[in-house]
């Protein structure tokens, strides 16, 4: 050891060999740092009296449209705020801002998911927006991706996974983690069912096979079909 560590170059050889191999037991999650911030976020939400919902889906499944319709429907009744996650652009935030609710765009600059630290920062920015410190319900629209966001707790109270009819019914079976970790599975764009082969019962069964506790609903934000079940769900989690 002494021929490689440099001890032989000095006269007083009195230090202990702390760089001898040593096995250190850790037993800590790689997500521990994220989860600690997520717990702080949750405490922050609760101190503000907010219910937070994390929305996870592929790109283009209709998350933003569902939010637009939800804001219209609940305006004047429930104070809604939104944190928008995207890799680039603030287009989704512009759509939400046009509905007159406080919104902050979080651009991840390439990262495929939101993490708890981004929500922590986003929440502080949201509080500075007009009305942003007086909210009942916070939607976190995650980066469009059915895989990566599922691993990162943001401190949310509820996690919603969405699949649109054009994507096909095999998504639960192919991307199980998002369905196992969610409380609600929303099938969107049901107005397109006549044009696509999407057996709703099969998608529902596959999702329940993964997570028997999952609540499943099917709706079209455009036609309004099934939308009341979504509103009922939101009103239930607000209580």
């Amino acid at each position, binding site marked *: 050891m002494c021929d490689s560590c440099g001890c032989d170059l000095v006269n007083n050889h009195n230090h202990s060999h*702390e*760089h*001898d*191999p*040593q*096995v*250190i*037991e*850790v*037993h*800590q*999650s*790689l*997500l*521990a*740092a*994220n989860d600690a911030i997520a717990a702080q976020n949750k405490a922050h939400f609760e101190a503000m009296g907010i219910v937070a919902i994390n929305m996870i889906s592929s790109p283009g499944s209709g998350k933003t449209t569902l939010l637009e319709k939800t804001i219209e429907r609940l305006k004047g009744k429930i104070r809604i705020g939104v944190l928008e996650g995207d890799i680039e652009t603030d287009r989704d935030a512009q759509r939400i801002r046009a509905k007159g609710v406080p919104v902050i765009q979080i651009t991840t600059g390439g*990262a*495929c*998911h939101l*993490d708890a630290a981004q929500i922590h920062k986003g929440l502080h920015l949201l509080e500075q927006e007009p009305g942003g410190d007086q909210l009942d319900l916070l939607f976190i629209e995650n980066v469009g991706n059915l*895989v*990566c966001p*599922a*691993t*990162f707790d943001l401190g949310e109270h509820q996690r919603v996974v969405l699949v649109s009819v054009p994507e096909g019914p095999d998504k639960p079976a192919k991307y*199980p*983690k998002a369905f*196992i*970790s969610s409380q609600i599975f929303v099938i969107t764009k049901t107005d397109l069912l006549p044009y696509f082969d999407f057996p709703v019962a099969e998608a529902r069964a596959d999702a*329940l*096979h*993964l*997570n*028997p*506790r999952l609540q499943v609903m099917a709706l079209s934000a455009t036609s309004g079909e099934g939308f009341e079940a979504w509103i009922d769900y939101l009103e239930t989690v607000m209580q």
Partner: protein
Amino acid sequence: MHEMSLVQALLTQLATLAAEHDKKRVITVTLDIGPLSGVVVDSFQFGFDILSAESNLTKGAKLIITNPPATYQCIRCGHRQTSLIRPDHCPECDETLLIPEGGDGIILNKVEME
């Protein structure tokens, strides 16, 4: 490719541990990656190979990954079974709805350093 973020979290943890224990080089890293963790082990290994080479602390370190099974509890009779892959049904009552428990951990178990 969120495995890269997880590898970065691992490297941060290793740097902290090395500083705490006054170590200069990581020899082996032992991790549990559960079957329901949403992590692709090959992608994690790939990310580790790329990012670990960037620092003298972790250059050449060996990654040892173990896959602990998840537990599945039958929604009807409560029977529990452990498995690496999702079982189709309960062996006791044939019910197909099984609630997964655990198996989603990404745990740094131990590190050998010098």
